[in-house]
């Protein structure tokens, strides 16, 4: 397709909220709102919760229905569900964020290296990645956790850290490593696409060294798909940790994240009480919010790419 030399006219700006020069549609606005809301709750939990963390209020009522004193009711031992939700947010969201960050750092470094360093490193890493990706993540997680957790007492006795800390580390480590693999794949693909473009070749021809090329040429253009992937990974991690806790294999009592809240309150659903739906709903809400934003980011990226290429 031939390129015209007509003057490029100034783009008219349509009304609406904009971010980085792109219009944010209604759905993504809702997504941002949900995310902000959750972060707010997470940070200000101690100030917002009507009752303290893990406190059993004086007027002990087990499985109380939602009421003025307990907006979401109480759980099996009488704790206020709303408060538990707010405190649990920190565990759920915080752990997921840490894990996603670990996955991302490992994944991006290995992915970019594979794309740029060439053949041997690339082939070896890619084969290994394919192998891990061909396994069902949850199953693999469970198998590894069985073996690692068996070391818990020994480890705890030796280092003096708490059980809970050990369990948290195991979850973050195992999932962080497993999810570094799809991030590796994506960053490798993104880097390879960019590396194939002539402006990267022009830099290499100049004699620029590899770090400069990554920093100045590859990374700035790789950011949109990577940010979208971050959101997506966060969702997967969040759901996986919640599922593990739900199965009783993640966060253990006395600590509670949203998944274990669902687990511990599950029985009461048989009686028609909604308690487990609240933490489950909270999980669903945050995931939906992040997905809405990710969807928008992905559509912006594919459009912008089309314009530039």
């Amino acid at each position: 397709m031939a390129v015209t030399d007509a003057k490029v006219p100034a783009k008219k700006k349509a009304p609406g909220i904009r971010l980085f020069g792109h219009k944010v549609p209604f759905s993504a606005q809702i997504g941002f709102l949900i995310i902000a809301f959750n972060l707010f709750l997470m940070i200000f939990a101690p100030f917002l919760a009507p009752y303290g963390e893990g406190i059993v209020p004086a007027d002990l009522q087990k499985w109380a229905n939602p009421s003025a004193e307990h907006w979401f009711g109480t759980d099996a031992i009488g704790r206020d569900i709303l408060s538990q939700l707010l405190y649990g947010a920190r565990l759920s969201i915080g752990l997921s964020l840490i894990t996603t960050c670990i996955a991302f750092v490992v994944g991006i470094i290995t992915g970019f290296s594979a794309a740029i360093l060439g053949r041997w490193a690339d082939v070896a890493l890619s084969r290994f990645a394919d192998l891990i990706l061909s396994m069902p993540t949850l199953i693999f997680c469970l198998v590894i956790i069985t073996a690692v957790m068996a070391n818990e007492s020994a480890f705890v006795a030796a280092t003096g850290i708490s059980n809970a800390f050990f369990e948290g580390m195991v979850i973050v480590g195992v999932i962080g490593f497993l999810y570094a693999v799809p991030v590796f794949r994506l960053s490798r693909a993104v880097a390879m696409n960019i590396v194939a473009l002539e402006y990267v070749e022009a830099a290499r021809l100049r004699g620029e060294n590899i770090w400069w090329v990554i920093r100045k040429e590859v990374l700035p253009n790789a950011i949109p798909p990577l940010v979208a992937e971050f959101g997506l990974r966060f969702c997967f991690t969040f759901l996986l940790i919640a599922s593990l806790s739900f199965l009783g294999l993640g966060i253990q009592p006395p600590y509670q994240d949203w998944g274990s809240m669902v687990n511990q309150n599950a029985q009461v659903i048989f009686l028609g009480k909604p308690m487990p739906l609240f933490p489950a709903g909270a999980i669903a809400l945050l995931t939906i919010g992040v997905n809405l934003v990710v969807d928008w980011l992905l559509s912006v990226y594919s459009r912008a790419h089309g314009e530039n290429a």
Partner: protein
Amino acid sequence: MLKLIAQRLALGLITLWAASVLIFFTTALLPGDFASAMLGQQATAENTAAIRAELNLDRPLVLRYTDWLSGAVRGEFGNSLASHRPVSDEIKPRLFNTFFLAIYAALVAVPLAVFLGVMAAIRQGSTFDRGVNVGALLTISVPEFFLGYLLMMFLAAHFRIFPVLSAVNASTPFFSRLYFAFLPMITLVLVIVAHMMRMTRASVLQVMASPYIEMAYLKGLPKWRVVVQHALPNALAPIVNVIALNLAYLVVGVVVVERVFVYPGMGQMLVDAVSKRNVPVVLACGLIFAVVFIGLNILADVLSIMSNPRLRHPR
């Protein structure tokens, strides 16, 4: 084309083998005093020794692996550490239950997802399309247990249409099974229909955007003909791929759903075994799940190759 298929199958076998290695070698992480740690206060010299014998912790790792693998191929996985009965005896009924549930869900989900996906793609931008997309996004985002408990609360607890617990056993007759397994089945269906529908829609849209589709319109062909004669044969390969991939995903979703409805399947068994550190059972279930998952992925790739017109009729 046959060469490609053979290559893929060979690669698949290697992957399966590598998966078995990965799964088994996690036992290398077990501490030396695993037996006594597991029994805790009930550890005596005898039952510790019994467990050690069961797990063969004295033998070198590689030999343990080959023993285990050769047994696994025959269907023998050793004895359960909890009940001391052969693992294979305990797995069989559970395996049957899980497959029943999975196939039940697949038979409902696949036609529904493909139909919705194709219709949404053909009517892109319409209210139907937008509605379907929003619905899919919502169902994908929420965890399986949320959907499960929601359904349970309304359809079982409040309206009493379905039973709350899916208590099936070996003697349950066929139609009763269908009834008991209905709620878990619907939960699974909701989860994978969303994924499948989205991917189907994307594949069909991509095909519909091809230049040869525009050419078909320019030849004056009516829309239905363009879709059926021109678009679908090309969309077939990616759709089949999508279906197989999602069935693989079913394997994982089953675990949580069985727990929600207390359905006696292999997922439940795996979770119990993990919490009790019942290593032989964990390995056995893990291996079976992995084999099915990888097997379906291989099937997806092979079907993809077979339905690609360029590969079926090479130069």
